[in-house]
């Protein structure tokens, strides 16, 4: 992005588009995979006995019936991230800035079937992260550094798309009635496109124009190994280890900038720009191939099968350090209850803690830090060999962020996300 040493006024206006994260890279539990798992808050490592096990714990698929198929018909995700009191109106009142993302997509398909002596083969596709923002925002009569020249209009257009896809085979083997091992090798693909436009129209006729465009493609592999041990008839323990490796990354960025409110030539990237000349425009194009690091993830889970109608499960996950990301722990707990032979409800609780450090006063350009707590609920109706599930999960978190770059101002920030999904399964 632009690395311009502007006055405080100009920074404030420009960096409204730059300071916030493009994708939710500060959290790892952006989308829980699998209908049953999602209903139980993702506490699925010791269960995993259906196609979603390919993602959560490949060892679990060896406990699935002969042939199982599962598909998320559609998952609607919406997230509202609010930065509090970021803007100040001419009358002194403060205004929040919201980033809203919503997407509707099938995020999982998986099939497992018996293969070989005691073996189970799986093939699955999962979308683990999906951000889609399309926003047109207008702010009027915003206070500026010039008391007699407020911004009549600040217009921000956002069009962000950022998705991470996994696709690949799994295989699991039962070494005994109580021990199973499995592995999944996912192809990893991340596709990101960021388009942001901002126009600031000043009361005295000047303007600031910003256009930012970025595309990024990451290709890699995400292997995972899993084990499930059932030391007792009603108890299962699971362990999963996974890490994604980006093998190639290609990023292109385009910046376009023009500022007619600047009262003197500006120095940007070592060059002087005099925007009083109507032909002057700052333009920069850059390409990167730096490969990001992604964290090693270890998850330990337990499940207690109280009866054929009731079970409880819990997971503890550890994500290691990666690039600027801190290591982080997450927890999830879930339960499943059949109140009829053909009807089940599931409920869960999960954490989605930020992989960033808490913000320090006085520092600038710090990543936001918002810890999220979530609840999930789903209802499944079984009919013969198939089932259909309707589920919902809600996450909420409060924290801090610096919505404006190059300033030490820390804003309160909060996130709310909601996911509604419909999925179908078949097992024989």
């Amino acid at each position, binding site marked *: 992005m632009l690395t311009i040493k502007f006055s405080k006024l100009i920074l404030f206006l420009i960096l409204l588009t730059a300071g916030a994260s493009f994708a939710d890279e500060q959290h790892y539990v952006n989308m829980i995979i699998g209908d049953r798992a999602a209903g139980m808050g993702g506490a699925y490592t010791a269960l995993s006995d259906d196609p979603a096990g390919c993602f959560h714990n490949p060892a679990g698929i060896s406990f699935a*019936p002969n042939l199982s198929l599962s598909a998320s018909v559609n998952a609607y995700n919406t997230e509202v991230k609010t930065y509090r009191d970021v803007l100040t109106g001419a009358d002194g009142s403060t205004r929040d800035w919201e980033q809203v993302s919503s997407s509707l997509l099938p995020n999982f398909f998986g099939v497992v079937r018996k293969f070989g002596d005691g073996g189970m083969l799986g093939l699955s596709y999962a979308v683990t992260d999906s951000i889609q923002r399309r926003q047109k925002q207008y702010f009027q009569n915003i206070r500026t550094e010039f008391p007699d020249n407020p911004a009549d209009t600040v217009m921000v257009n956002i069009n962000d798309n950022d998705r991470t896809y996994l696709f690949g085979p799994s295989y699991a083997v039962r070494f*005994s009635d109580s*021990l199973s091992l499995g592995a999944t090798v996912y192809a990893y693909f991340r596709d990101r496109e960021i388009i942001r436009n901002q126009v600031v129209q000043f009361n005295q006729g000047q303007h600031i124009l910003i256009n930012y465009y970025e595309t990024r493609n990451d290709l890699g592999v995400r292997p995972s190994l899993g084990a499930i041990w*059932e030391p007792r008839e*009603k108890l299962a323990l699971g362990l999963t280890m996974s890490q994604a490796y980006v093998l190639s990354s290609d990023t292109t960025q385009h910046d376009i900038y023009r500022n007619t409110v600047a009262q003197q030539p500006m120095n940007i990237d070592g060059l002087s720009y005099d925007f009083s000349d109507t032909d002057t425009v700052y333009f920069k194009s850059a390409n990167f191939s730096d490969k990001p690091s992604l964290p090693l993830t270890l998850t330990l889970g337990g499940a207690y099968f109280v009866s*054929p109608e009731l079970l409880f499960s819990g997971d503890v996950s550890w994500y290691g350090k990666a690039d600027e990301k801190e290591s982080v722990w997450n927890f999830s707990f879930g339960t499943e209850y059949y109140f009829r032979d053909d009807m089940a409800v599931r409920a869960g609780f999960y954490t989605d803690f930020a992989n960033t450090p808490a913000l320090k006063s006085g520092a600038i350009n710090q990543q936001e830090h918002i810890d999220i707590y979530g609840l999930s609920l789903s209802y499944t109706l079984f009919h013969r060999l198939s089932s259909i599930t309707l589920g919902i999960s809600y996450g909420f978190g409060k924290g801090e962020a610096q919505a404006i770059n190059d300033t030490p101002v820390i804003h309160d920030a909060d996130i709310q996300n909601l996911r509604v999904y419909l999925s179908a399964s078949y097992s024989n």
Partner: protein
Amino acid sequence: MIRISKWFLVLLLIGFQQVLPALSGEGRQRISSIVDTYRDVENVEAEILFGRELAARILGAYGFQDDERLNRYVNLVGRAMALHSGRPELAYYFGVLASDDINAFAAPGGYVFITRGALLKMENEAQLAVVLGHEIAHITERHVIRELNIKADDGSTIAGIAGLIGGTTGGAVKSLEQAMDKASDILFRDGYKIEDEIEADRIGMLMAASAGYDPAALRNFLTHVKRFETEDGAYTGEHPVHTVRIAKMDDVLAASGPAQMNNATVTERFYANVNN
């Protein structure tokens, strides 16, 4: 980085495996899969094949009552009840056992037997119908099948039962015999679980009401034969807790509409076919 020999891992795995308890995997199984599996064609075939073998054991143990008229009558009443069983994929067969014990048996897949002794203690057709309905319910609810976890082939306790029936290898024959022994123990010695009996009572009574018979006939019959239980100890295996069952039947009769329907008991036809 820690380097671990793959051979060490293999040895660790083998050693680990040796100390692990053998589990059936039933704990993980959910009620939906338990219920749904029987609807699968292969599992229904396995259920019928297994039930046929078990029916042969029942006949071998008690003998068949060679009375064509009586068997025809029991079959007519039984099939009228089976129409209301809710499992149309099964064909039901009813037979009278040449025994003076007071008992009735159900083998998976649709095989129902009642002893001559039980028939002789009955007072009307409604009692016969509801007793047959009770046995049909053991079949529809798969009490034996569930208890033994019998499926076509899923790695369960008795894996590949369909293959076992026609199996010629020593292992297959032995596994089938073990399964049959367990089923025989349930029928002849240990009885069903009390909750299974109560469930069969409830379904049998509702089935009788649907067929137009008095659902209270089961309660009347059990109360009637309880006197004989104290005399000769019959029913002590299969029907162990009459007091609890009768109390539950009273609950069903009080809560359900059929008790007020004044359904038929059909005494004359019963005595015309069952020679007391």
